[in-house]
C-alpha cells in the first residue's frame, strides 16, 4: 500500500433523512497536494471530512486514507492523519496543555514530546496552563492545530480553519498551512472563501449541495473564472463603443455603474490608452476577482453536466 494516495474517496454518499448532504463524491488527494474543498455553507464539506475521519458512516461509497478504510481498520486508518472538523473541541475543565497531554497519550509514540513545539508554533505557550474553558474561539482553533501537529501528520484535514479568526489569525493560519505543505505535509482543507483556496491550494474541488461541480488544478479553475475586468470612465456609453472596437476585448456588458468585459492584462492595458486617446478619463480599471457565486454561475451555465464541462480539460491535458 506504499503508493496509495493520502485520500481516495469513491462514490461517497451521506443521507440524513431526505437531505442528501453528500452526493456521489469522488475525491483523490495526491501526496504533496494542498487540496481545497470549496463550497458555500451547507454544501457538505464537513460531512465529507467526517466520513474521511471515520466519525460517521457513509450511506454509500468508500474512503481510503493511504489505502486504509477507516470503517474497517478503525483508528489504524488514521495513522499519519490528523485534523479536525468544525470548531475543534476540548475539555473545558482541563488546561490547554493537559488537553494536549491527554491527546498525546491517546496517540502514543512520540506525540508527547512534540507538545512544547506545537504550542510554540501556534503561539499558545503563554496560555498553556489556563483552562480551555476560558479560551477565545481563535485560541481554541489554534489549540486544534497544535493537537493535529503533535501527531506529526503526513495528511492534515482542516475544516474551514480560518473561520472565525481575526485577520491576523487568518494570516497566521494560512502561513502555517503553507509552511507545513512546504515541509511535505499533504493538506486537505475545506473553505467557503475562494480567495483562501486561491492563495493556498494547487488543486480544488468545488461543491454545491453535496455534489462536486468542478474538480481540477487551480490554474484550470482560474482559466475558467479569470479575465474579468471592471471599468468606470467619465462617459461609459462611449467607452463601451471603444471597447467593442478594441482588439482582445470580449463580452462587453454595460452595467448601471460600470462596464464589464473580458480581456488579458495586455489587452486591458492597450484599452486604457485607447480610452484616453478617445478623450475619456478613466475613473477605475481593475481586474474583477470572481466570487464563489460567479464561479458557480460560470460552471453551471453551460449545461446540465458541469463536471464534464469544466473538469475534463484538466484530465485531457494530463493524459
Amino acid at each position, binding site marked *: 500500500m506504499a503508493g496509495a494516495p493520502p485520500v481516495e474517496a469513491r462514490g461517497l454518499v451521506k443521507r440524513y433523512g431526505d437531505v442528501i448532504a453528500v452526493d456521489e463524491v469522488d475525491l483523490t488527494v495526491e501526496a504533496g497536494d494542498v487540496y481545497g474543498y470549496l463550497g458555500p455553507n451547507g454544501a457538505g464539506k464537513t460531512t465529507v471530512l467526517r466520513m474521511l475521519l*471515520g466519525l460517521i*458512516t457513509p450511506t454509500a461509497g468508500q474512503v481510503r486514507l493511504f489505502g486504509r478504510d477507516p470503517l474497517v481498520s478503525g483508528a489504524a486508518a488514521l495513522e499519519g492523519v*490528523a485534523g479536525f472538523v468544525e470548531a475543534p473541541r476540548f475539555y473545558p475543565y482541563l488546561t490547554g496543555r493537559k488537553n494536549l497531554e*491527554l491527546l498525546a497519550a491517546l*496517540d502514543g*509514540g512520540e506525540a508527547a514530546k512534540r507538545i512544547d513545539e506545537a504550542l510554540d508554533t501556534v503561539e499558545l505557550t503563554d496560555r498553556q496552563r489556563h483552562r480551555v474553558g476560558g479560551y477565545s474561539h481563535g485560541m481554541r482553533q489554534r489549540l486544534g492545530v497544535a493537537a493535529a501537529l503533535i501527531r506529526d501528520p503526513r495528511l492534515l484535514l482542516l475544516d474551514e480553519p480560518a473561520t472565525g479568526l481575526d485577520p491576523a489569525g487568518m494570516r497566521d493560519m494560512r502561513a502555517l498551512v503553507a509552511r507545513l505543505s512546504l515541509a511535505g505535509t499533504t493538506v486537505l482543507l475545506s473553505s467557503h472563501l475562494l480567495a483562501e483556496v486561491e492563495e493556498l491550494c494547487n488543486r480544488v474541488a468545488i461543491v454545491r449541495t453535496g455534489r462536486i461541480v468542478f474538480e481540477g488544478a487551480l490554474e484550470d479553475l482560474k482559466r475558467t473564472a479569470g479575465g474579468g475586468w471592471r471599468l468606470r470612465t467619465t462617459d461609459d456609453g462611449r467607452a463601451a463603443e471603444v471597447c467593442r472596437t478594441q482588439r482582445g476585448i470580449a463580452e462587453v456588458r454595460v452595467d448601471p455603474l460600470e462596464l464589464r468585459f473580458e480581456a488579458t492584462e495586455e489587452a486591458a492595458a492597450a484599452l486604457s490608452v485607447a480610452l484616453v486617446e478617445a478623450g475619456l478619463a478613466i475613473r477605475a480599471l481593475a481586474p474583477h476577482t470572481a466570487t464563489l457565486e460567479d464561479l458557480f454561475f460560470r460552471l453551471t451555465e453551460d449545461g446540465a453536466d458541469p463536471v464534464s464541462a469544466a473538469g475534463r480539460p484538466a484530465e485531457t491535458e494530463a493524459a
Partner: protein
Amino acid sequence: MPALRTVYAWELRKLVAQKRTYLGLAAAALVPVIFVVALTLQNGEPEDVAFGRYVRQSGLAIPPVILIFGSYWLFPLITALVSGDIVAAEDHNGTLKTILTRSVGRGRIFAAKVLAAVTYAIVALALMALTAVIGGIIVSGFHPLVTLSGTTVSAGRALLLIGASLLVYLLPLIAIASIALLLSTVTHNSAAAVVGALMISLMLQLVTIIPGLGVLRPYLLPTQFNAWQGFLRTPADWTPVIRAAWVCALYALPCIGVAYLNFLRRDVAGG
C-alpha cells in the same frame, strides 16, 4: 495503539478534574460524619433500623446502618451521577470527535469509561465505609458486634464481614452504573441518564409491591440492594449473595453490551 491502562488513567484524571465527581464523594463521606455527629449530640438510637439498636455498643454497627440508609437511593444516585455522565459529557463538550480521531479505537475508549465509572462507585463506597468505620470507632469504640442472627462476633471478624458486605453491595451498584452508562451512551444527555437510571430502579421497586408479581421479587434489581445482609448473619447466608451475583450480571452485561455496540457504531456528528 496505546494500552487500555493509559486510556483508563486519563479517564480517571478527567474525573478528578471535574466538580461533579466531588459532589458524590462529598456526600458519601459526609453522611457517616453527620450520623456520628448527631449520635454524639443526641440521646437514643435509631431503633427501627437493623443494627440501629447497637450503634452505641459498637462503632462497627454504624457502617451497616449507613449502608441500609443509603442502599436504595443515595449510593445508586452517587454512582449514576458519574456513570450517567461519562459518555454524555463527551457529547456535551463535543469532545468525542476529538478523542476518536487519535490512535485509540472506540472499543478501548468505551472500556476505559466503564472501568472508570466502576472505579468511581468503588471509591465512593470505600469512602463511606472508611468514614463510617473511623467515625463509629471514635464515638462507640471497636467492640464486638451483634449480628442479624442475634449472635455476637468479635470486632475483628465484624470488620471482615463489613468488608465482605460492601463487596456484595457493589454488585447492584455496578448494575446501576451499567444502566446509567447505557442511558448516557444512548441519550447523549447526562441529566436524562442519571434520572433515568434511578427511575428504572424505582420502577422495579414498584413491581415488587404489585400483588401477584411477588414471585419476581428475588430477581429484581432493588432486591439485590440488601443482599449484602446475608454476610451479617451467622452462619453467613449465601443464598441472597449468590443470587445477587447472577441477577446483577443479568442486568449489567446486556446494558454494557448494547451501550458498547451503540458507541462503536454511532455517527459522531455533534460538536
